[in-house]
């Protein structure tokens, strides 16, 4: 779920931009020292992959579908830094090429989906792998959808608190946490199940093909 432009206050997106720039620098530095000349084509292909995965419609119970996130797939197979940069790249391309998704909201979207989503997937997988690998992959994928959802819901939900007129009327997003959290988390819990099933299928295939970061 991307936040579009116009619903986040400058008090939110400006500090988020500063944090994101630092995070991108950290990711890029870490990659340059670890990978060889193939970094650029790899990053480009993963950016395209993140874009392509976003086009895959996840079937959900009830006949509905949602867009795949795919962040767990990319994070588990290719690592945190590449996944973060690839997702940031997709958000940037979508905004600058297709006019879809926000530029001012990009730092928040990138930090939530790209960084927090990837980190959650990897952390959950490492934590649960000793118990059962497939369950670890599934829970990692589910969590990689829920955690960014919670962050996005949180950022939206605090807008009325941090940016309002003297009489308390919100200037940006109008609903507080008591609405944004359930409104986002409930559908994302469902989407997370579809994402978990898809990630597990892809994981098994990747193991067959011996792909790794």
């Amino acid at each position, binding site marked *: 779920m991307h936040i579009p432009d116009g619903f986040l206050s400058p008090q939110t997106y400006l500090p988020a931009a500063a944090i994101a720039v630092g995070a991108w620098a950290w990711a890029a530095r870490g990659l340059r020292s670890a990978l060889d000349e193939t970094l*650029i*084509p790899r990053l480009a*292909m993963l950016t395209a*992959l993140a874009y392509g995965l976003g086009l895959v419609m996840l079937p959900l119970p009830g006949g509905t579908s949602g867009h795949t996130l795919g962040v767990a797939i990319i994070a588990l197979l290719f690592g945190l830094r590449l996944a973060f940069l690839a997702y940031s790249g997709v958000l940037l391309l979508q905004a600058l090429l297709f006019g879809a998704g*926000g*530029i001012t909201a990009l730092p928040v979207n990138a930090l939530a989906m790209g960084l927090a989503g990837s980190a959650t997937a990897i952390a959950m997988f490492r934590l649960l792998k000793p118990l059962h690998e497939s369950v670890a992959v599934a829970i990692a994928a589910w969590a990689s959808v829920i955690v960014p959802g919670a962050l996005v819901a949180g950022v939206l939900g605090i807008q009325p608190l941090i940016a309002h007129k003297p009489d308390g009327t919100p200037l940006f997003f109008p609903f507080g946490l008591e609405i944004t959290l359930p409104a986002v988390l409930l559908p994302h819990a469902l989407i997370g199940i*579809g994402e978990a099933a898809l990630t597990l299928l892809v994981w098994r295939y990747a193991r067959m*093909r011996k792909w790794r970061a």
Partner: protein
Amino acid sequence: MAGMTARHALYLYLAVLPAPTFVHDPALLALGLLVALALAGAERWRILKRSLLAILAFNLSVSLGVVLVGLWRGHVDTDWLLLANLRVLLMVFLGFWFVARVNLLAALQGWPTATLVATLALGQARAFARLIRDFRLAFASRSIVKPRLLDRRRHAGAQAVALLDKAQVQSTEVALAMRSRGAFDA
């Protein structure tokens, strides 16, 4: 934007875009939108239509929520409805206007790494979009009756696997091609 380089247009866009978030008067935002419409030239109505369609789902659901809560509380905040929707429309309009006028790859010239990554990514993204389109059409073609949830899940999995396969293969191929053309020579 006549006479301006793509890079300057990008800078201008990034400088102007945050401005509506510092404005809290719907009249000023409406004026900003009118100015943007005027400056956008012949494509203005196409860009406006595209912008409206892009914001429709999210803005409509949020606005509807505000209206419903307002009705329940006995007062609908029309000021907010105007302010928020005009602001989002203006910002999205600026985005689509930028996209319509500026070649992104030209804007990134001067940052060779970014240009290269963007060029490679865009080319491959288009190929992936065509592949997903073919998958979708093929599934429709082969499904004589409505497919089961299991079939739809398998189909989603097949798409993801195909994309991953191609990304892996292309990553290696592109690296080899770049090496053979001397791109990695110091």
